[in-house]
Every structure is written in C-alpha cells, then in structure tokens.
C-alpha cells in the first residue's frame, strides 16, 4: 500500500476516497472496461457497472454514487481486481465508497443488522444457545468464549460504535 501518493486527483470526492483507505489507485483508471467485462453482476443487471462507478466518482458525482444502489451490488469476487491492466483496487474502492455512504446514513438494512450483531455478540452471524447445546451430541467440542469485550474496545477505538449510534438516531 502506498499512502504517500502525491498524484493530483480529479475531484475532491476522489480525494476524500483516497484519504479513506486504499482508494488512491482509482485515478489510474483509463475506462477500458476490463472490470465490467469480468464482472458477473454486470452481466446480469444494468444496475451495476464498475467502470461507470469509477467514472462517476472521478467526475465528482458524489451524491449520485453514494445514494445509489450500485455500490452495494458488487459481489466482492475480485475478478476485476485480478484483471485490471492499471491495477486499480476496484473492490476496495467499493468498500471505501460504502464506508462513506455508511457515514452519511445511506445504509441498507442488512448492514445495520451486521453492525449491531458485531457490537452485541462479537460476530455477524449469531450462534444460538440451541446450536451450542447440541454440539456434544454431534461429537463437537464445546465452543470457546467469544472476545466480545475486546471487540467492543476496538470498535470504540476506531469510532465504529459512533457510526452505530448515528444509525440508531437516524432510524
């Protein structure tokens, strides 16, 4: 990762993205479309095209990108990441865009559930007491305790817990 890139960016929005993590490679995009032709989702729906998302954000169309559905339709398969001739970290750019969207309150319901679950249980998929009690009958060892206290300290240090509060205020 290169945090020291001084490259001039096309818009303040691209700069914001760069300042979040790993988005600095986006300005290398020359719109060849290798990402779109490698994308399994773009083959199914016109609602998502990674090349279009990158184009819009380089043009500074922040509101359109952040409030839209497209950034949530990337399936994180990393095909584009493997094939991009300019080594643009497209899936990471999608995560960075979702991070900005989350901060601004554009949050699909399922992601609020994930955020609550990780804070409450230290896991995004909850293991029920029923399943836990059934383990010995299946021949599985008891589950070790989950580090919920530790994860809450991390969520507080990175201010993830504030994102969560903001979500609760807006809902």
């Amino acid at each position, binding site marked *: *990762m290169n945090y020291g890139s001084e490259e001039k960016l096309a818009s303040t929005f691209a700069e914001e993205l760069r300042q979040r993590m790993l988005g600095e490679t986006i300005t290398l995009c020359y719109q060849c479309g290798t990402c779109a032709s490698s994308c399994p989702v773009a083959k*199914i729906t016109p609602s998502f095209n990674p090349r279009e998302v990158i184009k819009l954000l380089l043009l500074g169309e922040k509101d359109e990108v952040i409030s839209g559905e497209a950034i949530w*339709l990337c*399936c*994180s398969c990393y095909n584009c990441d493997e094939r991009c001739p300019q080594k643009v970290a497209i899936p990471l750019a999608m995560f960075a865009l979702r991070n900005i969207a989350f901060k601004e309150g554009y949050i699909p319901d*399922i992601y609020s559930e994930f955020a609550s679950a990780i804070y409450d249980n230290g896991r995004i998929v909850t293991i*029920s007491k029923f399943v836990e009690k059934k383990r010995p009958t*299946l021949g599985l060892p008891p589950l070790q305790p989950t580090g919920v206290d530790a994860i809450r300290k*991390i969520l507080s240090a990175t201010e993830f817990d504030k994102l969560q509060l903001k979500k609760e205020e807006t809902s």
Partner: protein
Amino acid sequence: MTSYALFLGCTIPARQPNYELSARKALSKLGIELVDLANMTCCAPPPVQSIDLETSFAVAAYNICLAEEANLDLVTLCSGCFESLCAANVALKHSPAFKAKINRSLSKTGKEFLGNKEVKHYLQVLRDDIGLKRLKQSVSEPLNNLKVAAFYGCHALRPSGHLRLDDPERPSILENSIEALGAESVEYKNKLKCCGGLLRGLSDEIALDLAREKLANTTKAGADCIATLCPFCFVALDIGQMQVRSKFQETYDIPVLHYTELLALALGVDPKELALETHKIKVDKVINKIS
C-alpha cells in the same frame, strides 16, 4: 504432530456442523492438531469491510494476535475468514505505518500485532504439510467413479496478491485434492465464477441467478456432486437449489458437499458421524455410489 490454531469463524459453528465435523475428523486422521483458542471473534469479512475498512483490519489483526500469543499459525475453513485474515496479515506486515496505526487501536485490548504468523487455507496444509502423495496413500475408501465438480468460490483464490493459494485464473489445487481421493474432477463452464453468496439478503434475484448458472453448468457436465470450500458457497448452492426450484421450476437435485466431507469419507470416517442430515439436498446418491 503439526498443530494449528483453528479459526472457526461464525457461519460454520452457527449452521454447518457437517463442515466442522468433517474437517476436524479428517485433519485429525491426517495427524494435524487443531487448537481452539479462547476469545476469537468475527473475522471482519466484506460486510464489516463495507461498514468500516479500518475496523475490519483491526478486528482481523486482533484475532491474529491471539494466534501469535499461542505461537501457532492459523488455519481457516471458511474462505471469507481466509480472505479477511490474510488481507490484514499481509497489509500490516508490509506497511509499518499502517501496522502502527492499527496497533494503536489494538493497544486498548492489550494486544500488539507483531506479524510473525501465517494464515493458511486448509488446502495448503493438505498440499504443503501432508503432501497429496501421502494423502492418496492415507485413503482407505477411495471415491472411485465419483464425478466431482470442483468449485473454488472467490475468496480462496482472489485477491491472489495476498492469498497466494494458487493461480487465480488457472488453479489446480482443489482438482488435485479431489483426484487424490480417487474421484474424478470434471470440468464445467465458468467454473471460477462467483456463486452470488455475498449478495444474498441484499439482492436475492442476482444472487440466485448466479447460483442457478452454477447448478446448470455442473449438472450439464455430468457431475455427481459439487465440492465447495466455503460455507457461503455451500448455502448458495444447497439451499439455493430449493429457491431455484420454487422460483424457476427447475430441479437440479445435485448434492453439494464440502471438500472436507469427501475427504473424511475417503479416509474411512463413518457417514453417520458427519451430520449429513444438515444438507438440504440429500447426499444419499453420493454415499451409495462410493460404498
């Protein structure tokens, strides 16, 4: 005996005892000790990366710290865990500035990421620690005549820059591991394409389209079953078949097994000990063919 800290993740203990049982029994038979460490958490996969990337790296790094304290490398069963833990491990090892930043958050938990441990996929353990030749010699119930469609999913292979399991465009580790059990690995169209698993619950229509294509292509290739490496791919293709049936009136009835289940069966583990009833698509056809 080679020992690893097992990173079990969430989905496997919550929903897939068939995966956990087969992995534990098979690796134990092969002389690999899996150590369950206390206080592990979510691995911080794409859903957490989507909310806050920095938090996801810190949470993943925290779990690696637990393995560092136990002086053990980590082994994963879930490809989501494999990807998120490898991403943090590689990023922190290669950027002192980023490591220092994450360590500031970790200090609140009394941990410090040092960067002296590896995160491995269990297929790496089979290939590199045991060796496929020795694995083949350990097989007591060869899966003769069984045609298996190898399905890698995404996060066992990509992003290859930090996962480094195999060539992301032309992998062979899973096919070779299948053939080591005496089964035949069958080729099919768009083998490396995503199962759509991560879009379930967000865009079920797209997710189901991707699963449906996988089911159609593996069936057309004449596979007796699909071998998966990831609990999300398993759900997408196993439960997904029931959803494809009700939405498109298409019945595939192709069993989906984790590679570890095939491995355990080939190593002579009694099918009754593997919680095979967890499968929505019954695996009797596979059991009958190999016994």
